[in-house]
């Protein structure tokens, strides 16, 4: 087991960081590694030895814990190996990177543990899923079902992912009585759970879901009044809640084993985010929507452009406009539009052409006129000549 580190095998920087982490005064920078090793042995290994002996008994009970080494006690090489096992390719483990890699390994180990527990739960749940269906269909007293309830509960909760259709199908055609019975069972179960230890976190989360979604896993005291409502409101949300409750319940069981509330808190907190986003997404997207009988939220789809009786609307009133187009539009208000520019150009061209033509015409007229004048002058001269003779 790679718990007992041999300080002589560690690098000097590693020893230094270890000593700093344990608040041991560092020797002078020029001292040899042997000095660090000594100090390390003196202070840290004693501490670890004490920890180990006290933990041994706990670990003997906890097989799961026994497999999980504490990242900060590993050597650089071991830390690297553990990270590689989880599919991470770590870079060099130096004094500055060591802490980060330890944290990463810690996170990976936690998620591993979580997965293992989930798998264990699911393995139990699959085997009993058929029994649960039969029990659902029978009309039994809620009291008599208290004992099989916990197992039912866990069954329902995990199988919710896999048998939602089968769940939904029996429900609507069923008469209200049986569904109300089932729902009252839920109420009692939820009340049992809330009373159990370490369930504060659970109850707050379920309370949130109760208020937020308007779903009807029921307030604990009432079962009969709401049963009529609940029969209408049977939904997947109930199953999701139950799953969450069971998983958190299983956490409470394990919490006692693991002998640490920190584990449970981490679990509950980390378990809630994966499930809360599912529900929070609904709340966020559709905050003002009413609850529907099936719990399914649907928004009207935008109509297809140009389809029958849906004329194409070229300019939508609230279409988003990018800043570029906004700027361009503002500028264009001041500039003269292109069509008008072209029109003006053509008009000016026509005017110039007309002027040109007129000038040409008048020139020829003038020249014609000059000829006439010349002719007149000649004739006058001629007359003058004649007059002289």
């Amino acid at each position, binding site marked *: 087991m790679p718990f007992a580190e041999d300080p002589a095998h560690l690098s000097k920087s590693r020893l230094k960081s270890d000593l700093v982490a344990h608040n041991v005064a560092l020797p002078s920078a020029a001292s040899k590694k042997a000095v660090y090793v000594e100090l390390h042995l003196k202070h840290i290994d004693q501490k670890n030895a004490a920890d180990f002996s006290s933990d041994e008994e706990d670990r003997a009970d906890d097989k799961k814990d026994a497999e999980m080494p504490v990242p900060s006690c590993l050597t650089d090489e071991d830390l690297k190996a553990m990270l590689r096992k989880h599919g991470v*390719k*770590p*870079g*060099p483990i*130096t004094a*500055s*990177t060591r*802490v*980060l*890699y330890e*944290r*990463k390994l810690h996170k990976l180990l936690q998620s591993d543990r979580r997965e293992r527990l989930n798998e264990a739960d699911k393995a139990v749940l699959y085997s009993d899923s058929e029994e649960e269906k039969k029990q659902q269909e029978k009309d039994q007293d809620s009291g008599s079902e208290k004992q099989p309830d916990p197992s039912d509960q866990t069954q329902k909760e995990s199988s919710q992912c896999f048998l939602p259709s089968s769940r939904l199908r029996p429900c609507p055609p069923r008469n209200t009585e049986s569904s109300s019975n089932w729902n009252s069972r839920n109420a009692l179960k939820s009340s049992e759970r809330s009373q159990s230890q370490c369930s504060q976190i659970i109850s707050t989360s379920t309370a949130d879901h109760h208020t937020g979604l308007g779903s009807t896993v029921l307030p604990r005291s009432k079962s009969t009044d709401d049963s009529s409502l609940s029969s209408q409101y049977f939904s997947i949300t109930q199953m999701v809640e139950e799953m969450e409750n069971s998983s958190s319940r299983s956490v409470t069981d394990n919490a006692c084993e693991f002998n640490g509330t920190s584990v449970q808190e981490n679990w509950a907190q980390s378990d809630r985010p994966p499930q809360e986003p599912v529900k929070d997404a609904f709340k966020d997207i559709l905050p003002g929507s009413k609850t529907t009988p099936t719990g399914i939220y649907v928004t009207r789809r935008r109509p297809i452009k140009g389809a029958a009786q849906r004329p194409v609307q070229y300019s939508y009133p609230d279409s988003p406009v990018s800043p570029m187009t906004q700027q361009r539009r503002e500028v264009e208000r001041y500039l003269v539009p292109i069509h008008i520019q072209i029109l003006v150009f053509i008009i000016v061209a026509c005017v110039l052409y007309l002027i040109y033509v007129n000038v040409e015409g008048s020139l020829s007229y003038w020249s014609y006129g000059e000829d006439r004048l010349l002719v007149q002058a000649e004739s006058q001269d001629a007359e003058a000549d004649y007059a002289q003779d």
Partner: protein
Amino acid sequence: MSSTSQKHKDFVAEPMGEKPVMALAGIGEVLGKRLEDKGFDKAYVVLGQFLVLKKDEELFRDWLKDTCGANVKQQGDCYGCLKEWCDAFL
């Protein structure tokens, strides 16, 4: 396209040379001072740390948060800046 700041564009446009650590996107006066106190006085030293962490985003962000207390946006800006610089010049 996500928008990048002018600082980011300026940094990524040329080799960093001896630029101070405050030239990095996301690192202003306060964070720059903290990094300098820890010994990261030039941008290339932070680049060194970035490369030692194998350009891993999560690890670099954690390191930045631990070292100078950068918030999520600052971490993201700095990471993006260095990553782009490496893509261009490394």
